[in-house]
C-alpha cells in the first residue's frame, strides 16, 4: 500500500505542477517568452488567500475567487508595464525583464509579509477518502487538486479549439504579423493569455499551499522552475503535454524521494528530463517544426 500512497501523493504534486505548467505553456505558446515571474504569481495568489481567509475570515471559496481576480489583474499589469514595451526586442532581454519582475514580486511580498513562513490553513474541508478499510487514505485536497487540474486542462483545450479568442490565440502563436493582418488584436490576445495564465497560477498557489501548508516569499520559485521543466518535458506550447509532463514530473519526484534518495530526487527528475529531450528534442507532445532555408 505504501507504493500506492507514494504514487497518489506524486499525482497530487504533479497536478499542481500541471496547473502551473499550463499557465507557462499558454504564455510561452503565444507570447514566445519564458515568464520567469509565473512562479511568483503563484506565491502572491497564496498570500491573497492567506489574507482573505485566515486574516479576514472570508469563505474559502470567496477567497479563492478574490485571489484569482487579483492575480488576473496582476498578470495583465505585469504584461502591460514590463513585457509589452519589449515586444519585438531580443528574447533574452524579455527573459531578464521577467527575472526582474520575479525579484520585484518576491521583495514586495517580503516587505509586506516578512520572511517567516505563514501557516496556511487548508481550504479544502471535505472528508478524506478511505479505501481498503482505511489502509489507504487519500486526502480530500489530493482529490480536489487532481480533479481541478483535469477540468482545467480539458477546459483550456476546448477554449483554445472552439472559441473565437482561443482561435485568435492559435493564430497569434503561429504568426503574429499574419494574425494582425487578419484583424486580430495581437496585444489584446496576449493580455488575455496572461490573464488566464495568472488566474490559473492563483488556483495552483491555493492548492499548493493547501497540500504543503507553509507560505514564504520564495514558495513559488522552485515549483515555478519545476513546472517550467514539466512544460518543456511535455513539449512546450502543448496543453495536454503540459498536463502529462506535470503529472509525470510529480510522480517521478515523489517515487525517487521515497525509494532512492530524498537528496538526489531533484537530480533524478532533471536527468529524466535530459534523457527525454535527447531522445525527443521537442518534448513528449511537441511539434517538430521543419527548418526552412
Amino acid at each position, binding site marked *: 500500500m505504501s507504493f500506492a500512497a507514494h504514487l497518489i501523493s506524486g499525482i497530487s504534486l504533479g497536478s499542481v505542477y500541471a496547473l502551473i505548467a499550463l499557465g507557462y505553456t499558454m504564455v*510561452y505558446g503565444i507570447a514566445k517568452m*519564458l515568464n*520567469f515571474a509565473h512562479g511568483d504569481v503563484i506565491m502572491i495568489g497564496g498570500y491573497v488567500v492567506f489574507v482573505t481567509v485566515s486574516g479576514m475570515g472570508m469563505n474559502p471559496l470567496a477567497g479563492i475567487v478574490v485571489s484569482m481576480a487579483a492575480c488576473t489583474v496582476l498578470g495583465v499589469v505585469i504584461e502591460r508595464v*514590463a513585457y509589452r*514595451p*519589449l*515586444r*519585438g*526586442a*531580443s528574447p*533574452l*532581454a524579455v*527573459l*531578464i*525583464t521577467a*527575472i*526582474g*519582475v520575479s*525579484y*520585484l514580486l*518576491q*521583495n*514586495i511580498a*517580503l*516587505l509586506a509579509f516578512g520572511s517567516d513562513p505563514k501557516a496556511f490553513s487548508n481550504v479544502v474541508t471535505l472528508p478524506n477518502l478511505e479505501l481498503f478499510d482505511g489502509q489507504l487514505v487519500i486526502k480530500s485536497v489530493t482529490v480536489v487538486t487532481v480533479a481541478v487540474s483535469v477540468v482545467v486542462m480539458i477546459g483550456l483545450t476546448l477554449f483554445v479549439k472552439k472559441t473565437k479568442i482561443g482561435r485568435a490565440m492559435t493564430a497569434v502563436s503561429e504568426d503574429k504579423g499574419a494574425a494582425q493582418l487578419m484583424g486580430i488584436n495581437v496585444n489584446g490576445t496576449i493580455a488575455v493569455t496572461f490573464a488566464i495564465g495568472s488566474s490559473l497560477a492563483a488556483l495552483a498557489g491555493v492548492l499548493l499551499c493547501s497540500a504543503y501548508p507553509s507560505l514564504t516569499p520564495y514558495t513559488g520559485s522552485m515549483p515555478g*522552475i519545476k513546472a*517550467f*521543466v514539466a512544460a*518543456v518535458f511535455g513539449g*512546450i506550447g502543448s496543453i495536454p503535454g503540459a498536463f502529462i509532463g506535470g503529472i509525470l514530473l510529480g510522480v517521478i519526484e515523489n517515487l525517487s524521494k521515497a525509494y532512492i*534518495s530524498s*537528496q*538526489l530526487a*531533484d*537530480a533524478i527528475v*532533471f*536527468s529524466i*528530463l*535530459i534523457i527525454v*529531450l*535527447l531522445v525527443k*528534442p*521537442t*518534448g513528449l507532445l511537441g511539434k517538430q517544426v521543419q*527548418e526552412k*532555408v
Partner: protein
Amino acid sequence: MKTKAGKLSKTAKNDMITYGMVIAAYIIVQILVSTGHVSSLVQGLLVPFCTYSIVAVALNLTVGILGELSLGHAGFMCVGAFTSAVFSLACKETLPSVPRFAAALLIGAASAALVGFLVGVPVLRLKGDYLAIVTLAFGEIIKNIINAIYLGVDAEGLHFSMKDALSLGMSEDGLMLIKGAQGVTGAPHDSNFTVGVVLLLITLFIVQHFIRSRTGRAVMAIRDNRIAAESVGINITKYKLIAFTISASLAGVAGVLYAHNLSTLNALPKNFGYNMSILILVFVVLGGIGNMRGSVIAAVLLTLLPEVLRSLNDYRMLIYAVVLIVMMIFNWSPNMIFLRKRVRQRLAAGREAGEEV
C-alpha cells in the same frame, strides 16, 4: 594585430581599452586601499568583483559569441571550485602556496572543461529554450551530486561515499575533504585581489583572441546562420563544442578564485544554484551581449549595487529589481531605441544649426 602602417587595428585598440580599463581600475583601487579610502565592506568585495567578472566573460562567450543561452554556468563554477578546493586542502601541508594555487587553478579549469565537454555533447544538439532548460537541469544536477559526496583521504588512499561520513571507513588520522552538504572546510586562503585581476586579464585575453581567431569566426558564423555556415563546410558540432568547453573551463577558473577566498565552501542554491546562473546572465545581458568589457562593468556594478544600498535594508532588493526592469526597458525596448535615435538626431541638428548662426 598590427596593420601595415604600424598602427593598431580598430579591434586591437578596443581590446587594449578593455585591458587598460581593468589595469587602471586595479591601480586606482590599490592606491585607495593603501591610503585607507576603501571601506572594509568594499575590500571584501574585491575578489568577488573579479570572480563574477570572469564568469560573466565566460558566459558571454556562450551567449554572445556562440549564441546559445546557458543557465548552467554556476554548475561549472561549482565543479571548478570543489575540485580545486579539494586539491588545495589535500596538499595544504606538502606544497608551498604559489605552485599549489597554480596547480589548483589548472585542475579546476581542466575539470570544469571536462564537465563542460560532457554536458556539451548532448546539450548542444538542442536549440533555444530547450537548450537553456537542459543546461539549467545540468547545473542543478551538478550541485545536487556535489552535496551528496563524502570524500576523505588517509594513509590508505582516497575514500569515497555517497551515503554518509561513517561509511567512508577512514582511519583516525585521515583528513575529510568533502563532508556532503557541509562542503569543504579549511581550504587555504590563496585568492586575493591581485590574483583575481591577473586571472581576469588572462580570461579577457583568451576570450578576445578566441573571437578574432579562425575558430572564433567559425563560431560566430554558426551563430549568425547555422545553415549557411554548415553549407560552407564548417563543422557545427566541433566548433560549438570548442566554444562551450572554453566557456565552461573559464567559469571553472572563476570557481577556483571563489573557493580560495572562503574558509568554508558549500554548494548552496544561493551561490551555485540556478539563481546564480541567472544572475550571471543578467550581468551579460545588461553589459551587452557579445561585449566583454560591458560584462566586466556590469558584473562589478551589479555586485556593488546591493551593497551600496545596504543602508536601505529591506528596500535594497526591491530597488535592485526596479533598476533591472527599467534598465532593460530603456536599453532594449524598440520604442526607446527609436526615441533615443530621435533625441540624438535632434541634438545633432541643433548643434549644426548653432554652428550656422
